[in-house]
């Protein structure tokens, strides 16, 4: 930071931090409370619950699946938009905001109609895989923005043409030249998507699937102290994902720092 923060800035920062940390600290305190004194029995109860592990693992898998699908669809799309139809970038940007405007409840109700379509295979609608397309839509704004920023930081057209004039085809150009230079953005988008899926409740709940977020909800309604412990655990997971973004963004050598330095 080049400029010193004025004194009023510190006041507002303190207010914001209090707003953020006091509920968190209260929850943490409550999660450690036992019949007499403090201890980790609430955490033990959660960690010993097989449902906790199963559903956490399930949500991990869903998050991973969502990230894979989303990256596979969006990297080529954003690449193409930047390379060939930059005029349409604002349109795509507008589309990317739609999941913020259309609530998940509308999305899932729409998705449920898929049950009525004959050609949709049973393996898709019978399991939690059903949730992945919805999650992909929800992650669109995060993934698109993360990728868009990365693509804007490089000269997509010149790099592509340079690779082609050296004899590279589309696949090699994408894998060897474009991907390494937007990897930091893709990873940031992946972490955001991970955090999103680990916390998405509405879709799973309405589609009658049990995932990690619905488990949090269930525990919250049945057991008081373990619910607080679970909240802290879940917060820790999300926080780790966000920390990942920061670390990836600052890695020396490969990644964003170097890309920035070339311009």
């Amino acid at each position, binding site marked *: 930071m080049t400029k010193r923060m004025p004194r009023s800035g510190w006041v507002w920062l303190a207010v914001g931090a209090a707003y953020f940390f006091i509920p968190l600290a209260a929850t943490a305190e409550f999660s450690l409370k036992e019949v007499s004194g403090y201890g980790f029995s609430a955490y033990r109860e959660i960690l010993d619950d097989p449902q906790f592990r199963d559903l956490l693992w399930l949500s991990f898998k869903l998050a991973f699946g969502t990230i894979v699908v989303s990256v596979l669809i969006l990297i080529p799309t954003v690449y193409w938009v930047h390379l060939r139809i930059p005029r349409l970038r604002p349109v795509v940007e507008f589309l990317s905001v739609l999941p913020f405007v259309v609530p998940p409840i509308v999305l899932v109700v729409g998705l449920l109609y898929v049950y009525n379509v004959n050609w949709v295979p049973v393996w898709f609608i019978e399991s939690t895989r059903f949730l992945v397309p919805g999650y992909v839509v929800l992650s669109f704004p995060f993934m698109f923005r993360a990728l868009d920023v990365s693509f804007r930081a490089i000269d997509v057209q*010149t790099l592509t*043409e*340079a*690779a082609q*004039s050296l004899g590279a085809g589309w696949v090699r150009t994408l894998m*060897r030249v474009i991907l390494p230079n937007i990897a930091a953005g893709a990873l940031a988008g992946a972490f955001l998507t991970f955090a999103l899926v680990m916390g998405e409740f509405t879709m799973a709940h309405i589609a009658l699937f049990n995932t990690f977020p619905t488990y949090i909800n269930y525990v919250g309604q049945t057991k008081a102290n373990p619910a607080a412990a679970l909240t802290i655990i879940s917060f820790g997971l999300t926080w780790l994902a966000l920390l990942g973004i920061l670390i990836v963004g600052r890695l020396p050598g490969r990644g964003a720092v170097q890309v920035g*330095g*070339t311009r």
Partner: protein
Amino acid sequence: MPYLELQKLRKKFGDVTAIEELDVALEAGEFLSLLGPSGCGKTTALRIVAGFERPTSGRIVVEGNDLTHVPPNKRDMGMVFQAYSLFPNMTAHDNVEFGLKVRRQDGAARRRRVDELMELVGLSAAAKRYPHQLSGGMQQRVALARALAIEPRVLLLDEPLSALDAKVRVQLREEIRRVQTKLGITTLYVTHDQEEALSISDRVAVLSHGRIEQIGSPADIYHAPGTPFVAEFIGTMNRLEATVADEGEVQVGGTLIPVADARGLPRGERVLVLVRPEIMELQRADGAGTSGALVGEVVAQIFLGSITRVKVDAGEHELSADLAGPNALELPVGSRVAARFPADAARVLALSDQPAEPVEPAPAGP
């Protein structure tokens, strides 16, 4: 047989015509520059040769093979871009190696070739550095090495020096010419900088509005511009509107001036007489004869280092004359001077269908 041919190229982007018609043929090993102001179609032409654009009509032929519909990655053309074309995730070495990897050369041969090229462009010591650790000039050297590594049939350069400082620009253009001559590679060079084009090319094609105005050796282009546009675009030129008088004479204002180039033109025809400032001679006009000379008053002196450009207000014309420093000192601002030029050193162009003022505000280069 020419080595690289741009045959009857036309290119339209929607309603906008980028290239009206372009016909250029390069001999093997020739260095040809496409020179013109921005929007003249020179970059579009280069991109069509590289395969990044499809011509609306016309063909690109190399060694008799029609490449017009061959995709860019199958053309074997080395291209150097304006800037920022190095792959930021690779070292200089890996950048140069990229095209060789695509061609599946084995590791040892690849390394030898990369070392050879890094040495050719004088960057052996910087091979392990990433593009962002290299200066702009070094980056362009690496880009040149990278383009040459694949032993391309043709080397294409798209204003490779325009993003560099003046000094590096001059150094690097000499470097490009040296490497090109050494390898004997057929080269198409695009620039808007006339000095650059004249200094490194075998031939220069001056483009305006998607057409070739003139094509020829740098000396031809400079000393014998074929059109008023070329005369205006290349270097500085005194333009005198005149009328053909008797055999080998033109009349400028009230003065009869001998001009060899006007011989054979019909009497009374309106012409443009073009004289380079370094050809123009100035003498004090007090007393001695001023016949055959344009008389005026020195209005400014511009110091240009080795020479001084003296501006003379001669009534309807403002003249420029480049004099050696000491000679200019004898003609301070306010002096009455007589301006002459050797009869065989001026160029005459028909003015009939040319508007009095150039249509285009031609940037005359730095």
